[in-house]
């Protein structure tokens, strides 16, 4: 499977550190395929990640890669993009990284509608630290810090980033590899802040504790729960309970931050010359 995309991997870093059956490798390949199809110059492409199992992904990719501090990938990426707007930036982040400690940077990047492409590897758990619940762990599910089932309500992350100002919001799963690739491509083509949430599996820190016997069972669960957004529109809320709505969930129109900045400097230049 790597053959067609191996030029984008740092092959000498493989095999990766992820556990057997972990979804990260699958989702990562989707991202790489998307970049390949986008025909982005490898030298002009940057992959920024936070901290978490998923965020380890950046080290395996042969781009300009930056593995930041926990939750802060988007803030680092904002600096890079503003400093050098010609770079194409992808941000890899986990559910915890993006929505727990990184929640503020997520909504502010969305508000600015800055041209960054975020892929959220949502395995519903803090994988790296061994299975504590995250803001995206479904209620009642178990985690090491929710031994009696979590009592917290998870975010509807897509709704949140839409409300915060993202202009492209999509969702897929590790099972739906082709869809994932397509959605990432479309997100990248959106000039603005694009978020693609990919439901992935963590068999070790989440699956085991929540009655998934094998990684394959988790992938199958993803297949079963997925409802394409078009179909979902004609379904009742109760029917959608617990389902994963996939596809392009939202597209908005708003000025992109770096372009606005460029316009400002342009305007100032013209004013200065005009005087």
């Amino acid at each position, binding site marked *: 499977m790597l053959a067609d995309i191996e030029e984008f991997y740092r092959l000498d870093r493989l*095999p*990766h*550190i*992820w*556990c*057997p059956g972990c979804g990260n490798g699958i989702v990562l390949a989707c991202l790489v395929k998307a970049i390949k199809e986008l025909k982005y110059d490898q030298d002009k492409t940057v992959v920024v990640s936070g901290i978490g199992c998923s965020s*380890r992904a950046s080290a395996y990719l042969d781009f300009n890669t930056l593995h930041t501090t926990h939750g802060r990938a988007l803030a680092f990426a904002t600096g890079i993009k503003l400093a050098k707007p010609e770079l194409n930036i992808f941000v890899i982040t986990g559910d915890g990284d993006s929505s727990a400690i990184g929640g503020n940077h997520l909504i502010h990047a969305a508000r600015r509608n800055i041209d960054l492409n975020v892929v959220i590897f949502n395995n519903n758990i803090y994988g*790296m630290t061994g299975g504590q619940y995250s803001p995206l762990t479904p209620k009642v599910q178990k985690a090491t810090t929710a031994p009696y089932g979590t009592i917290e309500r998870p975010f509807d992350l897509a709704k949140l980033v839409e409300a915060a100002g993202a202009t492209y919001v999509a969702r897929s799963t590790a099972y739906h590899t082709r869809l994932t690739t397509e959605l990432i491509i479309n997100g990248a083509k959106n000039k603005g802040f694009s978020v693609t949430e990919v439901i992935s599996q963590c068999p*070790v820190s989440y699956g085991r504790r929540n009655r998934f016997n094998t990684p394959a069972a988790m992938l199958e669960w993803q297949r079963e729960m997925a409802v394409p957004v078009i179909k979902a529109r004609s379904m009742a809320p109760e029917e959608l309970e617990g389902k994963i709505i996939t596809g392009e969930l939202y597209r908005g129109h708003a000025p992109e931050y770096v372009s606005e900045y460029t316009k400002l400097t342009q305007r100032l230049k013209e004013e200065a010359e005009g005087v």
Partner: protein
Amino acid sequence: MSNPRCEIRLSGSGGQGIILAGIILAEAAVLDGRNVVQTQSYGPEARGGASKAEVIISAGEIDYPKVAEPDVLLAMTQEAYNRYGDSLRKGYPLIIDSTLVQEVGQVTGPVYAIPITTLAREKLGKEMSANMVALGALVGLTQAVTWEHLLKAALSRVPKDTADLNQKALELGREAAQARLKQQGINGLACGKESLGLVSP
């Protein structure tokens, strides 16, 4: 001896339950009335790669808590063997899961090759029990802790409904070990230079 001390290293891969085995061993030693320290390697390492648990059992105080040169090494995967094989004290016993460890380099002590994973799969229908089979074998060979307390410790650490399975696994390991010892014509191994020495070769 003033400070009979035995240092054990258990190694394998992240998912094999090596650390749990180490904890049970340590707990059994506590029940035996020994001093004990148990340590392990954590983190991303414990994800894909080699993983280890160490147990020091001693009649005296244990200050420095780490194992440098174990008196006995259990290697449950090839990678674990490759990584830790050399650390074993010269002349001391090596236990390998022969299902997964295919190549063993130059060794100076006895090697106990037991098809641990195969036993678990074939006799118990549960590969996941390999760690318990290994632990049974290790204690069977070294008698580092009493069997009674090993069982007690194990049953207190595993889910109730798996008690039977785990007991069987331990016993399966012990039997395999005893069979080997019988071949050698001994009852057990000394564990450590300043040995706890429950038996002698």
